[in-house]
């Protein structure tokens, strides 16, 4: 039998993630592909904690916990340091949450992308600052509850389209992926591993704690996000060549996705319809690019 996902496990059990954490699944797949010859930079985010306290580590590769805004550029520095020593083969991976990517870290990412530094930047997107206790980020979708966007004043405004921002830098590779589709995710990680230059992968990582969902629905939710078109799976090469990796023949209504999550419970029918319309509109725009 030919396996599409490597059997090897670099990440070890015993990490500190919550039950049903999408981010820990994402890391497991990423390390399966990148292997031991990798270095991670992780800013303040859930993964700064998940890895575990000294002397325990769940990742089994060197890990640099960076200042919040600098995961990308610290990775640039690590790569430069390795280059000077002739260590060309080591994978340098910046691994950050949505806050450290969409908000505070965007300046550093943009800088590294413009210079086309040879690193892979992976954002595991759980759509809020989960580590500090569920505050909104610019990755939080329209309508969602967080502690800083309470029910009466829920998040207004669309999620920042980070992949488009990154591809506007004309980087060699930008992609979205989901923990619900590990083969696709691993294929993308493999692709990124073999490209020189700046690679950006956006992984949707459901968070039962912050989304107020049942931990058993993590994969189901990640899948529904794709099937409802709220999180389409595609890749962009050199900022121009768009490829759709998961075709959705008949999109499911967004209510299917919302009903498993507490953070959307307060939404009125009109608001849900508005969200549905904007998803359809965004999808139309995207489909034209393929």
């Amino acid at each position, binding site marked *: 039998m030919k396996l599409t996902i490597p059997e090897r496990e670099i990440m070890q059990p015993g990490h500190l993630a919550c039950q049903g954490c999408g981010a820990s699944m994402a890391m497991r797949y990423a390390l399966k592909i990148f292997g031991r010859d990798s270095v991670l930079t992780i800013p303040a985010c859930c993964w700064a904690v998940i890895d575990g306290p000294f002397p325990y580590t769940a990742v089994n590769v060197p890990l640099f916990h960076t200042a919040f*805004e600098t995961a990308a550029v610290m990775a640039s520095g690590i790569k430069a340091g390795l280059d000077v020593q002739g260590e060309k083969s080591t994978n340098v991976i910046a691994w950050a949450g949505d806050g450290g990517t969409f908000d505070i870290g965007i300046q550093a990412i943009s800088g590294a992308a413009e210079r086309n530094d040879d690193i892979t930047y992976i954002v595991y997107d759980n759509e809020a600052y989960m580590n500090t*206790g569920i*505050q909104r980020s610019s990755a939080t979708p329209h309508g969602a509850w967080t*502690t*800083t966007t309470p029910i009466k*004043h829920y998040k207004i405004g669309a999620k920042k389209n980070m992949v488009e921002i990154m591809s506007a830098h004309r980087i060699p590779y930008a992609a979205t992926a989901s923990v619900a589709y590990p083969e696709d995710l691993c294929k993308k990680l493999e692709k990124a591993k073999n490209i020189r230059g700046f690679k950006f992968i956006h992984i949707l990582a459901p968070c039962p704690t912050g989304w107020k969902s049942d931990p058993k629905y993590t994969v189901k939710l990640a899948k529904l996000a794709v099937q409802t078109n709220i999180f389409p799976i595609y890749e962009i090469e050199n900022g121009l060549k768009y490829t759709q990796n998961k075709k959705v023949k008949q999109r499911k209504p967004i209510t299917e996705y919302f009903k498993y999550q507490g953070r959307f419970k307060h939404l009125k029918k009109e608001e849900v319809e508005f969200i549905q319309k904007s998803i359809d509109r965004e999808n139309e725009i995207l489909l034209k690019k393929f």
Partner: protein
Amino acid sequence: MAFGIEAEKEVIMKANKKDVLTGSYYIDGDVAAAYGAIAAGCKFVGGYPITPSTEAFEAFVHRAPYVGGITIQMEDELGSIASILGAVWSGKKAMTITSGPGFSLMMENIGLGAMLETPFVLLNVQRSGPSTGLPTQAGQADMMQSRWGANGDYEIIAISPDSPQEMFDYTIKAFNLSEKYRCPVMIMADECVGHMTEKVVVPEADKINIEPRRFYKGPKEKYLPFKPDKDLVPPMAKAGDGYKLHISGLTHDEKGYPTFSQTPDTKRLVDKIRLNADKIIELNEDEIDDADVVVVSYGITSRVAIRGIEQARAKGLKVGNLRLVTVWPFPEKRIAELSKKVKAFVVPEINYGQIVYEVERCAHGNANVVLVPHGGGFVHNPEDIFKAIKYAAQEKKKVEGIIEHKTELYRLIHEKNS
């Protein structure tokens, strides 16, 4: 300067009834600070979640809509502090809330705020550092940073509350001081005070004094944005009032325009605090008059110190308690005065020595200065403070420099390594 004299009159304004949730509460220090800010008339918080200050931000988020206030969660701490500078210059009272690394990121804009003489309040719920440190545990190691963090010469005011009630009370005081002296005022709380839940009494609105903004009311053609009143503080105008407003972080003259050499206005940034220090400083003193040893502490440590002091007093030692409510400007005169009367100062703080250097400086070699250090994460063992007092009371010779008290933790590290 007619408008100046008018501005100097004591204006007694009371808090707005709508802003004050009069009553007794059982809340933590972070939430109390948010209630205090709203009671003081704060209408805008630009913030960014960071442990252990997030609860204060969240509490403001939840209350703001009911008092006509706005909260924006910014994209980072640079955004947070820059946005409040903007809100202040458009005419409202504003605050930002942060901790540790966020505080570090804010430094440049603290300097800008000081340079523009912008009245704003910064709540720093200190955690252990450096860097990410211990996000959920206490520290007091940002004290020097709060004073010296940005580039250039300027002065700030820093207050260190030691209970949720004080988080409420002193947040109001912080706003009043910032309006009065047009400078950044920092509430240097710590994780213990921020996360401690205690009874907080919110008084009636007419019991809360509010310092109104000192707006310029003179003729438009005579307005100079940095022309000071007698107390060295210039009245303010806000954007959109029709005054010619040129506000610059470049070294500027009274008009606000850039100059090519140092101007008296930069010296004034320092002088307006230094020369008004007596009016600004608040200290809590207990049994100081006949004390042999005075314990100087602030924030949560001042509450921990009480037990050590009581233990020492029970043994018959004459111990005074000097609690710094205002840490900056530092009470130089009081410490110098006391140094002539007492044998020693004992300074416990959750760091490896910061405010102790100020105490040593102001003691002028007249009295011994004993540091009781503690790494971030936990509060002192009161036993350590007691032992340091005992040592300080017994030591007969004058020791040059700071004496570091060897705490249990110190012994643990060094005996283990030797």
